[in-house]
Structure formats: C-alpha cells, structure tokens
C-alpha cells in the first residue's frame, strides 16, 4: 500500500461513469505541477459497490445518463461519507434540467442528505489558488447545456467544521478538463487550477 494521493474515478452500474477518460491523467499532471503532494502517476477506477472504494477518500463521479445506485452502492457511499470521504460529482451534461442532474441530486439526497448552495467564500475556493467562486467553464460561456453560468456549486456539508462531504457541480468540469495534459501549453491560463483546490481541500480539510 502506498501513501500517495491516488485519483479515483467512481464506477456505478446505472450510467456512463467513464465519460471523461482523459480527466484523471490531466488532474494528476496538474497536482504534480503545482504541489509537492506525492501523487500516483495513474488513477484508478473503483466500483461503488466494492468495499475497496473506501481506500480512496476523494472520489470523482460523472456521467450524462440517469444515476440510480444499487443497494450495495448506496450502502458504500453512505459509509464512505460517514467515515470522512469526499465525493465530487460533476454533471457532464451541464444542464440543471438534465437527467443526470435530476437523478444524481435525488440519489444523493436519498443516500446522504439534500444538497444546498455552497457559498463562494467557502475555503474550497482559496485552498490553493484564489477564486471568487467556482471558475466558469468554456462550455458555460459558449451557452451549451442549459445556457447558464452557474454561480454556485452545491454541497452536502458536515456538521463538524462546515466541511464538504459531497460536492456537486453543474459546471461540466468533466468536459473542461478532459484533454491530454500536454495540451495545457496551449492555454493562456491553466483551466485545471481549480482541481488543485479540490484535491488540496480534500487532503487538508
């Protein structure tokens, strides 16, 4: 077993959990670029129905299709959050009327607790880089999906310390960050910087 940070993508039965296959490598590259956090060079995919998902206290979950957890998935996700894990869910549709948003938020409310708006002053947005709120994605600015720039992320927070247990995004970071790390050099501003905040926050808060 290693003490490196391992980027873990959640696999679930009901939808297209693997819709952003390039994202893990890109985020791993970003963490290695900006921080001294020991990070595993490759990510892992872990089934929510498998107890081994508890080995990865930060889990990334995305998709376009309806989300419906099985009993085993629901039991493990509940246990994961109760023990201190953080679940990051990103709506790959970028559409608050879309099926992913509706079903995933409903499933989270059923399994853990209802989501609520995360204030833009939350420590997540200053954990490493300073942001005024969740950074907008090119997909939002181009008017895709629901044609909205979402001002807030949603979250389920713990009673102790106001910490995030589940983070839900309609920003479609799954599309924004789904490219080869080598392509970062063509960007004026690295659009994966918020991922550093996400990982640093998960590791320190």
């Amino acid at each position, binding site marked *: 077993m290693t*003490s490196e*940070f391992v980027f873990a993508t959640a696999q679930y039965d009901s939808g297209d959990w693997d819709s952003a296959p390039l994202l893990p490598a890109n985020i791993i590259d970003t963490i290695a670029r900006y921080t001294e*956090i020991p990070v595993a060079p490759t990510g892992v995919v872990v089934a929510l129905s498998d107890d081994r998902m508890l*080995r990865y*206290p930060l889990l990334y979950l995305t998709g376009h299709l309806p989300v419906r957890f099985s009993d085993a998935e629901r039991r493990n996700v509940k246990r994961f959050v109760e023990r*201190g894990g953080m679940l990051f869910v990103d709506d790959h549709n970028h559409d608050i009327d879309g099926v992913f948003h509706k079903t995933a938020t409903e499933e989270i409310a059923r399994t853990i607790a209802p989501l609520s708006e995360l204030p833009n002053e939350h420590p997540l947005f200053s954990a490493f880089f300073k942001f005024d709120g969740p950074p907008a994605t090119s997909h939002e600015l181009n008017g895709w999906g629901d044609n909205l720039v979402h001002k807030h992320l949603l979250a389920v927070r713990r009673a*102790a310390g106001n910490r995030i247990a589940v983070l839900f995004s309609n920003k479609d970071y799954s599309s924004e960050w789904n490219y080869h790390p080598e392509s970062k050099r063509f960007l004026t501003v690295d659009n994966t910087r918020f991922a550093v905040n996400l990982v*640093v926050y998960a590791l320190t808060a």
Partner: protein
Amino acid sequence: MLCRLAAFALLGWLLGGSLIPSAGVRIERASTDAIASRLPAWTRVPAGVLLQLDLATTPDLWVADWLAALAHSGHAVTWSGSPPAVAMSSEAIADPRGSVRIDVAAPPGTAVVIHDSASVVDSVRVSQLGATVVTPLAMGTLAGNAGGQRFSAPSPDSARLRAIVVIGNASWEGKFVVAALEERGWPVIARFHVAPNVDVAQGADVPLDTGRVAAVVAIDTTVQSLGAALERFVRSGGGLVLAGAASLAPATARLALGSLGARTRPSVLPTDTIGLGATGFYPVGALAADGVVLDRRAGGIAVAARRVGAGRVMHVGYDDSWRWRMTGGAGSEIAYRDWWSRVVAAVAYLPGAGPTVANASTASAPLAGLIDRLGPARPIAAGKTPRRPVDRRLLLALMMIFLLSEWGSRRMRGLR
C-alpha cells in the same frame, strides 16, 4: 551526687514510661464500631489512661483526627488490628468530554465499589497492579468501599484544554487525525505543507507555548519547521506526538524515543480487514533508557513514550492509520477517533486546577492517614491487670526535691 542521680533516674523512668506502655496502666479499649460513640467519654478520662483501638477497618477521618488530638493533648493512644491498605486518587483526563480517571490501590482480589455523590460509578476487582476506572462525569466526592473499608477522593475539576497543533504534509493521515480530534471536541490548529512556501493553515497561528497549546502532533518531518521552539515547548510541559517518521526531523533529536527502524511492510490481502498498524509502521530501533513501551508488535515497538523535562513525548509509528478509519470493520471510525484522542490526552499539557478542597468524611488512604496520625499499630495483649498509675506531678516534685537537696548540700559544703 546521689540526689542528682536519683533525679536523672526518675526522668529516665518517665521517658521510658511514655514510650513503653506499662502493664500497670489503665487501658480503655474500643472496636471500630464503638469508637465514635466512645470519643466524648475518652476525651474526659485522665491523661494517664491508655486508649487502645482494636480496628477491623480504619475509622472515619473525623474519628482519626479526634484521636490524633487526644494524642497531642497527652493521652496515650494506640491501635491494633489489620485494616486493609487501600487508597484512591482521581485525576482529570485531558479530554474534551471531561473524563475523570480513578485509580484504586487495594490488596489483590479485593472487590471495590466506587460511587460519587450522585450514584454508583462502577465496581471493580483489584488486580496485582491496582485498578483504574474512567468515568465521563463525577459529581462531588468519589468514594470507594472495599469490604466495609470506606475511602474517598475529591472529584477533580474538568481540565481546561488548550489547542492541539497538527503539522505535516498535505495527506490523508493529517486530514483524518485532525478530523478525529475535532470530532472528539479538541480545538485544533492545523498546518499542512502543500507546495514550496505554501502551507494550508486551519485556525489562528499561535506561539508554541503551554498557555495556548496543549500538544503538537507531528505527522511527518515537516515538524522541523518549528525548530528549537519545539523542544522549549516540550520541556516546559507541552506534549508531543511523533507519528510515522517524524522522529527523523533533526529538531526532535533530543526528544525522540530512540532511533527509527525501517518501516515494516506486512503483506495485506485485498480482502483483509484493515486494523491499526495492519499496513505497517515505523518501529523504534533503540529505545531511550527512560522510554516506556506502550505497544509492541511483530515488527518492533510501535508506540512508546517518555518524559522530557516537564513534558511528555510519544512515538506513534503508524503513518497511515487513516486506513483503519476508512476501510476498517464496523465502528472503526469511532475506534479511530477514540484512539487518537487517547494518544493526545496522554501527552497533552493539563494546567493545574488549583487546590481541591476535600469535603469527605473518609480519607483517600485511610490506613496511611491513621499511621501518620497515631503511628504504627502497637498491639497490647488483652487481660493485663490495670494498675493505678503513678501521678507524674509527684514524680516531678520528687525530682525537684532531689535537685534542691543536691544544690543545698553543695552550698553547705562550700562548693559551687
């Protein structure tokens, strides 16, 4: 010359008589049950009467005090019997929940019932090394009863807790240690290193002194950044937990429990349930002479502690205890939280609560208190015939006459 010798002989007899009870002295006897009712009468008896207690258990504190007062006022008070040697002490534990630890000493095998001013707290059978009971709450006076022998200790005030500083690299281990301590109620100041010149801080940065900080938990060698302040803090009473490989930091060289061995790496199957230390730890290689082993495993010493100055240092070799919390069996997150809280409580600086006024009718160590007041047991055989004692005033007058005669004789002979 003869008169002087006679005066000294009388003086010696008086001294001897005060140390060795005479067979002819009148003796008043009382047992444990009767002593309290006999005290008023004993107070009025002449000083020459020997007061003898036959004790199955040690009397209450006020009775012992009364007897001590009689002894100080010239009465000869002695006691015999074999009351059980019991003792009790209580101490506030450095725990946000305000727990109290009660330590009981009694002969092995003794059953002791402990209660406070409200109700029974617990019952315990004493082993070879005594017994310890931890209770989250104690009201008023703590009292114990061991086969009729009563003893007590004042309930301590709750500990006033300072912050715990957790320092390390950004990692799951640091995150979950902070989470465990906060969930337990500890005020935590965390500082995690993320990148060159970038630390993530939680809580106000405070100077490292026992007025503000109770203990430092070093997750890894980043504790080096505290420099010499760390040793000053520990020597002045602060606590230090050196987790994982934190002992390798030069700043801990004079604090560590010993050299650090290579990390153990036991084989763990994917299906194994993870417990504390199941995934390996950093053992202490050569333990310091004053180190105490608290947890020894197949790979070596996993947990050990020592005192440094006024503070305490604990080596906790585990560097991924978070796996126990996340992937352990049912209830592992609670066990993990309790374990880390106990580790911190064991070293945390606990400011004194000031003198506690005991408001009890029984002593914390009744037999020791009795010996302190009346001296050790001095059994006197029953059946000895009491004889009227010689009036000591008469002896004094005789001594004066002898000495005056000596003086008069010398004056008449012209001697000085």
